[in-house]
């Protein structure tokens, strides 16, 4: 039983990372109906940026917030320079461009910071605030950070004029433009937010999966699975999906198939959901007009 609770707890912590990552994916999906395949590599690069700052002697939280702000700016710049010219391109073109971005960030990280696996500090130490005995301080911290990010995102979109404008731009770009919302900039800010949220996911994942240029492949895959499971057009559904996938991954890995084939769990979830319920658990069912 203790072993089971332990697996459950560490699944929840990993799930928190996937949930944040899935939230970043949803951010871009809602605005543009595209899935950003470069999200993982962008998050990895942000994490390296924070690591570099800490290497220069910055304290953890200062480096953390600096990386989040820098990622926001980076996301806005990427949208303006690289993504925008392909705004009306077919899906295949967008997917290829995103993969190109992923290649570039991966290469950039390898070139600037090297390919060796490095450890990354966790800001949480000592005894965890809850669940002591079943999870480490970092795992408890990740769960709290995830909940905080969810709360902030909710508050931003619910209570601020900018959040309202962004929702309007995503839902009805033409009318939004007519009432004076700068729809193009809303998309750019959406990319910035996604990059910033992704950076948090990367920094929460790094102490668990260690820092190297390929660290986010697996995390991104589980985040995809989480987003698809919860419904990729629903932020809270996707976050729930992230947690659920984390728990499932750990339990199935520990008790059913063995830890060395855990990635297949994500594949199975994605295919099963797409076959039986393509809109996910909490997604809106799309009806296309012919």
């Amino acid at each position, binding site marked *: 039983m203790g072993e089971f609770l332990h697996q459950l707890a560490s699944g929840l912590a990993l799930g928190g990372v996937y949930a944040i990552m899935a939230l970043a994916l949803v951010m871009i999906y809602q605005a543009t109906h595209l899935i950003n395949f470069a999200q993982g590599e962008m998050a990895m690069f942000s994490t390296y940026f924070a690591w570099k700052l800490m290497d220069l002697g910055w304290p953890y939280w200062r480096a953390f917030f600096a990386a989040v702000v820098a990622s926001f700016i980076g996301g806005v710049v990427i949208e303006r320079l690289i993504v925008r*010219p392909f705004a009306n391109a077919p*899906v295949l073109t967008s997917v*290829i461009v995103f993969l190109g971005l992923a290649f570039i960030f991966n290469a950039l990280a*390898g070139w600037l910071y090297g390919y060796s696996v490095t450890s990354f500090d966790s800001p949480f130490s000592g005894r965890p605030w809850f669940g002591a005995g079943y999870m480490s301080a970092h795992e408890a911290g990740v769960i709290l950070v995830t909940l905080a990010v969810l709360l902030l995102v909710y508050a931003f979109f619910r209570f601020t004029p900018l959040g309202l404008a962004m929702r309007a731009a995503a839902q009805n770009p033409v009318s939004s433009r007519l009432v004076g919302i700068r729809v193009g900039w809303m998309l750019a800010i959406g990319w910035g937010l996604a990059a910033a949220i992704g950076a948090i996911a990367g920094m929460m994942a790094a102490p668990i999966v260690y820092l190297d240029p390929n660290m986010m492949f697996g995390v991104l895959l589980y985040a995809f699975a989480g987003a698809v499971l919860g419904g990729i057009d629903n932020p809270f559904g996707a976050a729930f999906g992230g947690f659920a996938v984390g728990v499932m991954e750990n339990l199935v890995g520990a008790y059913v198939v063995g830890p*060395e084939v855990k990635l297949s769990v994500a594949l199975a979830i994605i295919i099963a959901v797409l076959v039986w319920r393509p809109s996910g658990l909490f997604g809106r069912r799309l009806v296309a007009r012919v």
Partner: protein
Amino acid sequence: MVKRSGTSQTLVALAVAIFALVFPFFASGYHLYQAAQVLILAIALLGLNLLTGFNGQISLGHGAFFAVGGYGTAILMAKLGVPYWVAIPIAGAVCFGAGFLFGFPALRFGGLYLALATFALAVATPQMLSYTGFDPYTGGSMGLQVSKPHAPFGLPLSADQWLYLACLACAAALYWAASNLVRGRVGRALIAIRDQPIAAETMGVNAALYKTSCFGVSALYAGVAGGLSAIVVGFVSPESFGLPLSLAFLVGIVVGGLGSLGGALFGALFIEFVPNIADQLTVSFGESAKALPGAIYGVLLILIMAAMPMGAAGAARAIARLGAKVEEGGDANVAANYGGKGEAP
């Protein structure tokens, strides 16, 4: 004018064919090995291009079918003692089945979700191959050894020369098959499904059947390529069939040209030699040169999508057309830009 570009095309094809045929008689063993690799990659790219370039179904996971072909061939040869010329067709048929079956859920996904599902397939493949439950067949994470076949009938050819020629024959036959496929009724249906799915179905095209069959044929190409790769390399291991391989295939068809079969050879040369050259640079520039292929791939993917969505083949056609225009003055745009709607919605 169209005829003129037709004859020059034939001349280029003829020159390539003659070069490919005499190549094994003056090249060294290592160069033959590399050339065989290029042909193998070209076969896989032909298959992926049928699916993604012509039919518009995105696959980021063709490395998985390549792996099924490679492992299928290796298991048949090493564990069951089947000769390679029987093993590879069987592995190809198995891949056709696997691709056809994967095509069914793919029907429901469409566009973006198909990219997601195949991405997941690509990432999960190495883990599934090294699954300990299959160890007696697959050799687990250690992989499987395959013995290199020798030339039959006492032909005076070295093993490398024979393997190269076998790959060349397979590539030529599969290219011929693919070009016949896309030029006829089937090809028109595939392109119609890509560009105007609803109109295609209204015209009586059975989209579901075409899409699943196209997935199957595409997987068959990847599987044959994987089988050939197993005997040329003499070894299969899980780590060589991961996401990097699947993404390299995508880079190959984009660089060669989406929806153009002739570009497969160029794409294959590109994805074979760019990492090779980067490896050589590592010697003089240290570890940072390892980032080079990724950087080149990334920048090229974006630039090609922005500037010439038809890749190298499209650029070559555009130059040929420009030349014809200069010579004859005017109406050069008549040249049919075959399957050339990279920007179609």
